């Protein structure tokens, strides 16, 4: 419940501000050509990026988990690493290299490159636990071609795929850095502009509400797409499946992996190295270290708390589908579509009035992270919990285990990969997060993200270089750990 409240508090603020000038004003603001155009522009971008992410992620996740692809253990990790690249950093790397990328295509490229792991990562977790019996049956029946087996696996993981796609779509809708840098007039850029000087908070709130409505539609669509898909596996699922021979398909899958890695990882890395080597560094090791310490501290605490909160929600939703549990889960998704800047300002408004003692202190920042990233954690935990055979619970109970002991001894070990990847996801997301960090970080402390943003806004390559390097390297570590362990 606390989680839902934390998630919904910003909404209450939005509604309050939106109605500041009366319902008529609100109505006028919504029914405008420019609002409609905004919706279309944002929706087109979100749809394109989501589609591209699925197209990239399904074959790659399948190849690294189910096939005999060469160096698949390395690829497994490398392909998750673009998560470590903040969207504004990737966008800055591209546009400072080729300015004609500005606009839709630049935003599309950058957002796809940084957000496809939201599909890829949960999908690898789901593929890892997939029963190989179906593959064998398909092969026996002569439907064992690589493409068919890939589709078969993907269909079995429809729920994961839908949850991942939802995350990507919501990520695109709420991302600020990439669209701002690529000068693509999406919702967030416009909302940010209206909020910024505090000149038109009403319009910003109205637009943010429209964005929430779109998110609600997406969440509903995701629920329908997942449908009543039966994803429970037999207990044999824990047996490591035998890799499927790729043969001639190895070439294009390898090529796709290389292409994705170059665009989303190697290119920004190369740009950063160029900045550092050509322009040197401006700040000392001490500055970078203290920013790093800030990033690590806040994001790890936030990740642990977020996962602890998400655990009961994810288990509840996966095991006991009641109306209340679904509502609880859905409500957390809504905030994920709120742009960080809106959540940040809402938290400023609420924080200074309700949480004065911790306002602009670490606890409020962590609370904001939890509200922002709860859906990430819930999504990951739910999809792995869904794959625990229901029968296991019954067996354990019939053998005399009390309910909590079933959760502890049976459920938790089985969803451990889900918990690990959820923790990693939240840590990364919090480390990269910008607007909330900027507004709510304790006064006087800095993080890698705030430092990096400060320098990139003035095109100071010498200043940005070391922080860009640090953020990529240190965000990459939890990613590598979480993905490499499996």
């Amino acid at each position, binding site marked *: 419940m606390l989680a839902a409240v934390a998630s919904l508090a910003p909404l209450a603020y939005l509604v309050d501000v939106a109605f500041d000038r009366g319902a008529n004003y609100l109505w006028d603001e919504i029914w405008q050509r420019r609002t409609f155009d905004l919706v279309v522009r944002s929706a087109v971008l979100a749809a394109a990026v989501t589609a591209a992410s699925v197209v990239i992620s399904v074959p790659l996740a399948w190849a690294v988990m189910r096939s005999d692809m060469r160096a698949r253990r390395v690829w497994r990790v490398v392909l998750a690493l673009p998560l470590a690249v903040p969207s504004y950093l990737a966008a800055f790397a591209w546009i400072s290299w080729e*300015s004609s990328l500005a606009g839709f295509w630049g935003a599309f490229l950058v957002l796809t490159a940084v957000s496809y792991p939201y599909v890829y990562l949960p999908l690898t977790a789901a593929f890892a636990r997939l029963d190989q019996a179906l593959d064998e049956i398909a092969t026996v029946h002569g439907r064992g071609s690589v493409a068919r087996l890939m589709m078969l696996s993907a269909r079995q993981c429809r729920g994961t795929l839908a949850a991942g796609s939802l995350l990507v779509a919501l990520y695109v809708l709420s991302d600020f850095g990439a669209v701002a840098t690529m000068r693509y007039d999406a919702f967030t850029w416009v909302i940010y502009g209206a909020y910024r000087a505090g000149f*038109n908070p009403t319009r910003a709130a109205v637009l943010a509400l429209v964005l929430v409505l779109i998110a609600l539609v997406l969440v509903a669509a995701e629920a329908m797409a997942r449908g009543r898909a039966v994803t429970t596996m037999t207990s044999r699922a824990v047996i490591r499946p035998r890799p499927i021979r790729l043969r001639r398909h190895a070439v294009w899958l390898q090529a796709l992996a290389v292409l994705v890695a170059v665009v989303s990882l190697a290119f920004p890395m190369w740009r950063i190295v160029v900045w550092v080597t050509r322009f040197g560094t401006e700040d*000392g090791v001490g500055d970078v270290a203290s920013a790093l310490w800030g990033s690590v501290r806040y994001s790890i605490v936030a990740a642990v708390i977020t996962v602890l909160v998400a655990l009961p929600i994810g288990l509840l939703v996966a095991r006991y589908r009641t109306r209340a549990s679904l509502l609880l889960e859905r409500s957390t998704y809504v905030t994920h579509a709120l742009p960080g800047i809106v959540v940040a*300002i809402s938290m400023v408004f609420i924080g200074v009035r309700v949480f004065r003692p911790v306002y602009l202190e670490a606890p409020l920042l962590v609370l904001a992270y939890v509200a922002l990233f709860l859906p990430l954690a819930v999504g990951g935990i739910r999809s792995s919990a869904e794959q625990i055979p229901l029968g296991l619970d019954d067996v354990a109970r019939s053998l005399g285990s009390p309910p909590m002991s079933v959760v502890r001894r049976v459920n938790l070990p089985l969803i451990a990969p889900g918990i690990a990847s959820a923790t990693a996801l939240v840590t990364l997301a919090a480390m990269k997060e910008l607007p909330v960090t900027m507004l709510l970080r304790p006064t006087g402390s800095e993080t890698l993200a705030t430092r990096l943003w*400060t320098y990139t806004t*003035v095109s100071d390559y010498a200043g940005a270089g070391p922080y860009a390097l640090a953020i990529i390297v240190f965000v990459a570590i939890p990613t590598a750990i979480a993905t490499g362990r499996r």
Partner: protein
Amino acid sequence: MFRSRRLVSLTGALLVVGVVASCGGDDTSTPSTDTSETTATDTVPVAGDPCADASGSITVYSGRSESLVADLYTQFTADTGVAVEARYGDSGELAGQILTEGSATPADVFFSQDAGALGAVSEAGLFTTVEASTLERVPAEFSSTTGDWIGASARVRVLVYNPELVSAPPTSIDELLDPSWSGRIGFAPTNASWQSFVTGLRVIRGEDGAREWLTAFAANDPVAYEKNGAVRDAVNAGEVAIGLVNHYYLYEKIAAEGADAVVAENQYLPGDVGGLVNVAGAGVLSNSDNSRGAQCLVSYLVSEAAQTYFTTTTFEYPLAEGVAAFESLPAFDELDPPAIDLSDLLSIAETQELLADVGLLTL
């Protein structure tokens, strides 16, 4: 070393003040980096000193960047004993934060990059009056008319142009409306300085006059960039021929990348509405729990030490009497900016509506 380069340049700036004070000249030659620390104590403001009984700690919402002012705050603390907790961010965002926080704001001082953000806080009634001895140091037209914020440094709008593409740069923004400039002008539609310029245009030419100019400007297909620095870079790279920016962007690039890397030049617009002067400035929040310390910092910002520091590091014009500007700049009194009450630059919301109306801004 911790930001050693900037610390050196600050100490250098302080040394220059010492030199100027001792020989009474206005020599601004580049200071040597080999400085002694004793000069710093000469520059603490004395008579009617708002810092006389200042102590404790203050929270500053700093729209001016850390790389620019952190050393200044450090020096301030060393000189006055008042500790500074600085919260850095975008001026507009910090103004939004103060407005959202309302009277509960933990900020003692708001140091803003531009007058518009100060105006927004002022209009919300969240500032108290700056002390008279501080206000006196700066010409009245560069501070709030009610004295609740003070201008600390000034910048002027210019046309930055690429001489390889432009032989005779315009002397007025009206010349930019000529079809020959179609698709060759860069500007930063979301930039606060650009919007302040448009606000100035509205104030000087009236709503209709401003709309007329903007409509014609929009018809000339200007190229939008995220910020002024990007406009300057685009001009320098020949992507566009000319751009509407602030004067100092050019000198920043020269300082960062060397004169060889920069072909672009500034065209100043004396006597033209395009040559608007805007200021960075500061105000004291009315509910500050350390208003002595807050007033002390604001007075420090217009002290010779700080003014010289801004001049040498940002290439902005100093506003306090008796401090010389960066040598490459035209003299401040030759700029002949449009006569405007900077408090009138508040109406940013109307400016944004107008810009959206003529299609130059997406709202």
